[in-house]
């Protein structure tokens, strides 16, 4: 599965995209796996209320299932317009 990071999440983790092999059932499970890896992930995901997530390019919640997902993206609240 491709995992993408944008804005300050990308900066904290230090890369825009990576391939992750996971059997995480939900977005939140994936976040817990990533946080357990390294301090930079733990720092980026310390407060998920400050984050948003998209699964296959659709905004969703952290309890969304990951079955069949090809792409998960984490980022702060958007500031377009």
């Amino acid at each position: 599965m491709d995992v993408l990071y944008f804005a300050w999440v990308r900066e904290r983790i230090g890369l825009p995209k990576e391939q992750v092999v996971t059997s995480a059932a939900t977005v939140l499970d994936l976040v817990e796996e990533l946080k357990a890896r390294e301090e930079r992930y733990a720092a980026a995901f310390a407060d998920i209320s400050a984050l948003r997530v998209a699964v296959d390019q659709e905004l969703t919640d952290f309890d969304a299932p990951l079955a069949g997902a090809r792409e998960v993206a984490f980022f702060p609240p958007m500031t377009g317009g």
Partner: protein
Amino acid sequence: MRVVVQEAAFDAGAELNAFSAGLGNMGAVVSFTGLVRDVAGGLAGMEIEHYPGMTEKAIAAICEEAMTRWSLGDALVIHRYGALAAGDTIMMVATASRHRVDAFQAAEFLMDYLKSRAPFWKKETTGQGDGWVAARDEDEDALTRW
């Protein structure tokens, strides 16, 4: 309906004229233009990051929602990403309808959703360094009225 996500600068006036020229029987056109503003003074520039692929889809979905909610002849969204300077045009929205209320409402709806639901992130560069622009609570709250 036209959605454009691009790095290059664009001419908002020329886009407004082209949009208006193609309308046929719609008498009311509303546009919103967003410019890079130097709020605190000393802004060196702005960098806009986006999520290629999702950005276009998210904006198209917002436009389609607007087209179903209001009686619109057409809608246009152009949004830039990459490096911008103070005074540059960041984005524009245009809507057309027979009566002005639809065009106004739809333009406000598009802006409210683009602000908080299209995957763009602004970073400001000043003499004191860089900083990501924080989302405003008012922008999230604005969605509740639709």
